[in-house]
């Protein structure tokens, strides 16, 4: 009979990615590039929010965007047309999230000379992107009103790793049983430090608050 040998590993599956992410974060810091990782469910308004935000900030910062999706390039094209800034599409090849290595590949494909603010629009998903550190300087997420106020209870990890939570589609609140106060309470139960900013990406309402938050964070990070 064959001899069986055991090799003990005791290693988290996320460990190698966490290391890659820390290295990437350090490299970006040295280059002076602030990386924002934006996450949410599909259809919560990530791209529309980004367009409004970029148009408020593009005179103050040199911005580049990476759009991650399983397929198509509609988001990258939309961003480029609406803002005029550099925008590329990353395909995850079926994967439901981006990790640090994929983020690095995306950054390598950008023209980063002079860029001080890079944005990664992660795959629309409230589960997996929360588990994989991308090497970002800060994490942001969007929860839209139609999704319901209970999402922080259902997807606790996502809310616990985000520095800012944007509550989008505030204009349709009268049509949904969405309680902003309760939602904020649930978010703070998971993450007492999270900033909560209600916005309406369609009309632009509240997006200036998010832009201010970003400017403040980038300044503090430098």
């Amino acid at each position, binding site marked *: 009979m064959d001899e*069986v*040998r*055991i*090799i*003990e*590993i*005791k*290693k*988290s*599956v*996320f460990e*190698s*990615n966490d290391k890659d992410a820390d290295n990437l974060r350090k490299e970006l810091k040295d280059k002076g590039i602030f990386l924002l990782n934006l996450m949410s469910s599909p259809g919560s308004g990530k791209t529309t929010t980004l367009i409004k935000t970029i148009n408020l900030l593009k005179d103050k910062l040199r911005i580049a965007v990476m759009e991650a999706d399983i397929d198509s390039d509609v988001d990258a094209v939309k961003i480029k047309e609406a803002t005029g800034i550099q925008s590329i599409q990353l395909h995850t090849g*079926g*994967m*439901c*999230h981006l990790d640090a290595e994929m983020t690095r590949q995306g950054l390598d494909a950008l023209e980063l000379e002079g860029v001080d603010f890079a944005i990664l629009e992660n795959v629309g998903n409230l*589960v*997996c992107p929360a*588990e994989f550190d991308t090497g970002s300087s800060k994490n942001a997420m969007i929860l839209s009103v139609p999704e319901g106020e209970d999402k922080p209870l259902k997807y606790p*990890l996502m809310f616990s790793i985000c520095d800012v939570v944007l509550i989008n589609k505030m204009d349709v609140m009268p049509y949904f049983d969405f309680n902003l106060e309760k939602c904020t309470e649930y978010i703070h*139960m998971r993450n007492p430090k999270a900033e909560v900013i209600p916005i309406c990406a369609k009309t632009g309402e509240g997006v200036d608050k998010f832009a201010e938050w970003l400017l403040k964070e980038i300044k503090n990070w430098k």
Partner: protein
Amino acid sequence: MHELGIVFYIIRDVKEVARENKVDKVKTVVMDIGEVSTIIPEYLTDCWRWAADKEDLLRGCELIINTIPAVTYCENCGKEFGTVEHGKKCPHCGSDRTYLVRGNEVEIKEITI
């Protein structure tokens, strides 16, 4: 899809260990998976079968899953309780000043060769 992503990471790490130990065949991979890790064991083993059989090193290799029960600690009364049963609120004193002690693991415990 989530589980498939995890499987790719497991394969990457196991390949690395195999290379370091100069091993060309792995018989089993043992995982410690926490009860509230969001991993569904059946999906993980399904994805494993599909992906592992594409690698010479791992063809036929079995993935064994140990489930780690989730435990939450209450900062208010100092007691521990089952997370799956009671959630975030302490069943002893009703406080929600609690945190997860274990049950979030997605770890490769060991491999047999």
